[in-house]
């Protein structure tokens, strides 16, 4: 039934997408700028459907294995609309990864929601947020409710110019939560606060638990100093994310970042730092901490786009199941087997896209080299032995197949969504955001 509902929903989005003709881009030769995108005024309705057939080769991944796998990743249908003269905005994203890559996407270093060295599939209902928007003089305000991204950290990696997610996904974003957000904007300053349910999804069909709603909160401050530039600092207090029924370790999360996109969308830079401290609420002590620092950038050079991502992220290690890519969910106690420090360098290259009827294809390749080492010599998890002594490599080739254009951002709602220049590189052909917070 869920499968049929999702399929029907994706079909509906596809069928309806001609309604969005004004907002669709024809694609661009190579990764060159779609000039129209930058001048498109905020639109009432925006729809997009996407899938990425990707083939990944990982050497020395979990248990020292060499694997080659292929599947459809990032199978999403996205829609957003503005009603009542822009006073009501709705954002919806359906995700089909639970059908196309249920075992997760091979991605050495990735972790979260019971997956390790694979990125977990997202929930079928990835995002459904309604935002009421208003203004009093120069003060703009919005209130958002539904399931989606907590105002914390940086944009979802799906909206960034690399197909493989960074390792720090669960340190730098909080997603798929039932939430309530209030946002204010005055000039170049944005302030958001939210309350939400702290539990992480346990499967693609997970729904937020009503009993957990409101047990966690976050705040995020954003400054837009110049066109295309954005500074962010945020804090989140998350109760028992790993134990859906509660009683697990709580998390205190901090994030700061700086982001820049050039006016033509052909230069992009993001630098972020985040830290998650896990606390034993009963004893009121911090027990584990994980830190991440990431810099990624991309540039268009002629008909080719190039991207580079450098990352250092600390990851908790947990007992693994018979399948070395899975950990017990929920875990059977509050202990971990170690903390691994990952260093990863990713190079991405995208080539000129091609049009196939209503679809647009953006071929790309990514190459990633990783290194993992234990943070403490006595940790029982020994990354060197687990992955093997040889370098850890991943290579991916794929095509972003898309109907419509991507949303400009993912993780911001209402007046917290800046109307900066959209990205046009590495297969990210986002449209300008609907400009709830025009800069």
């Amino acid at each position, binding site marked *: 039934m869920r499968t049929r509902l999702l399929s029907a929903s994706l079909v509906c989005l596809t069928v309806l997408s001609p309604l969005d003709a004004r907002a669709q881009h024809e694609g661009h030769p190579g990764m060159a700028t779609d000039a129209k995108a930058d001048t498109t005024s905020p639109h009432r309705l925006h729809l997009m459907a996407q899938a990425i057939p990707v083939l990944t080769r990982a050497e020395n991944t979990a248990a020292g294995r060499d694997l080659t796998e292929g599947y459809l990743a990032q199978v999403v249908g996205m829609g957003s609309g503005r009603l009542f003269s822009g006073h009501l905005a709705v954002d919806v994203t359906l995700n089909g990864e639970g059908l196309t890559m249920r075992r997760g996407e091979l991605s050495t270093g990735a972790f979260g929601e019971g997956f390790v060295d694979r990125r977990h599939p997202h929930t079928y209902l990835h995002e459904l947020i309604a935002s009421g928007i208003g203004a009093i003089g120069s003060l703009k305000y919005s209130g958002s409710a539904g399931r989606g991204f907590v105002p914390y950290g940086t944009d979802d990696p799906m909206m960034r110019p690399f197909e493989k997610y960074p390792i720090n996904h669960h340190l730098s974003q909080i997603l798929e939560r039932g939430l309530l957000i209030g946002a204010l904007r005055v000039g170049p300053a944005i302030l958001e606060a939210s309350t939400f349910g702290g539990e992480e999804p346990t499967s693609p069909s997970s729904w937020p638990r009503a009993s957990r709603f409101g047990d966690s909160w976050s705040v995020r401050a954003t400054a837009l100093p110049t066109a295309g530039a954005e500074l962010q600092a945020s804090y989140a207090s998350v109760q028992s994310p790993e134990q859906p*029924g509660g009683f697990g370790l709580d998390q205190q999360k901090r994030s700061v970042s700086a982001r820049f996109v050039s006016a033509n969308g052909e230069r992009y830079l993001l630098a972020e730092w985040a830290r998650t401290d896990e606390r034993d609420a*009963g004893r009121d002590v911090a027990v584990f901490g994980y830190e991440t620092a990431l810099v990624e950038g991309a540039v268009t050079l002629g008909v080719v786009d190039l991207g580079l991502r450098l990352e250092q992220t600390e990851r908790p290690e947990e*007992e693994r199941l018979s399948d070395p890519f899975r950990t017990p969910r*929920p875990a*059977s106690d*509050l202990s971990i*087997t170690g903390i691994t420090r990952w260093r990863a360098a990713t190079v991405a290259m995208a080539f000129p896209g091609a049009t196939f009827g209503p679809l647009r294809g953006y071929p790309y390749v990514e190459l990633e080299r990783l290194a993992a080492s234990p943070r403490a010599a006595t*940790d*029982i998890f020994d990354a060197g032995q687990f992955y093997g002594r040889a370098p850890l490599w991943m290579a991916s080739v794929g095509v972003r197949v898309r109907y419509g254009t991507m949303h400009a951002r993912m993780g911001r709602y209402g007046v917290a969504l800046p109307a900066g220049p959209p990205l046009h590189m590495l297969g990210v052909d986002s449209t300008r955001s609907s400009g709830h917070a025009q800069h």
Partner: protein
Amino acid sequence: MLSIEEESTSRTSFHPYRSTMRRSFLSLVLALAFGGACGGDSSTGPNSQVNSCPAAGTQSNAMTVLGCGNFKPKRVTGEISVRGTTAYTTTWNNGSPTSAFYVWDVSGNVPALVDSVRVDNASTLGDVVVTPDGKYLVLATEYSGGSIVIFSLDDPRKPQFVSRFTNAETNAGVHTAEVGTVNGKVYAFLSVDPGGGTPPRLVIVDITNPAAPQQVYSRVVGAPFVHDTFLRDGILFLGLWDGGVAIWDLGGAGLGGSPANPIDVGLLQTLNGHVHNIWWLKDPATGSARYAFIGEESPGKVGTSSSGDIHVVDVSNMASPQEVAFYTVPGAGTHNFSVDEQNGILYAAYYNGGVRAIDVRGDLGTCTSAQRSSPVNQAVQLCDLAKMGRELAVGLKDRSNAVYVWGVQYLDGFVYASDMLNGIWKLRAVSR
């Protein structure tokens, strides 16, 4: 039927959680130090051992180490159970569909590995116990396909598979399985993990006929886990994590309970929760059955750190148990217990804190104000067993290497410890 096979004694299976380089380096060092006692990677595999233990430092109250076995095994050591001159240790976090347990000859000072037995469809064997009559060995398996596996001990050194019990209610994984006798029947008490959308639960299985185990009771308990149980005289104690410690009548409390129909007797939320294990002491010297010792398993990083205290609960009135004292080790946390009841000494596995021997005879709830302190993040003042001078000795902290002790068992003047990092240790018990 899932196969249970003996693990080849010559097999050196790949295990991901040990550094070959570290092992080889260790082997080299030990070989140089001890005249070639071991010479290569295979010598530290699961079926071989180093008889020379790491050197001892100076520690005034150190327990005497008699020997160690299978130092730095390839598999991570879990729980231990000893009967007579044979010990059984489980392996944990095997990262594959096959786990193994080891059989040790502990008649001498140095435990000698005599066999290893594979258990399929189990990534972890978190618990092992010998039935009270010594005839059978019961192991708990995690995760998916959670079960108990029963072996005959007709030859204690060569366990033979008898049966495996699993069903939908145990499928998420059996964390521990304790065994005891009630009204002449033998029961296993299965603490089942939450998982796959199913809640944690306690399952009681009649294993009087071990070839045909029969489930007699099941109840959803624990917040969010039930980790362990302790049965004595028809009264069952349950470690319900943040749900506290519960007491059920299975026929011993006179409330009409039975294994098929347990009756709730009492419940206590111990300070800081995380109730893992229990030992209800009956002191043969004094006749006292006043105290239960509760292990708090707070967060830890296996191999490096741990946390959690021992909570002393006065169960004179089981309907209203009261916490009266505690024992804490800064920087370390407790796990399983074993008590030399004849001498009133509790031995606690303390992970990176080694083994702790604590005097538990007498009145534990009466102390001077100077002997009181507060458990971490608590305002209430309780008797502090360490301040009361009841810590008699510390084991394995005098070694030159790190330890991470999962379980202990006292037996006939000796204390056997399972060390997740190193294998098995034999220590001399503390005397009064």
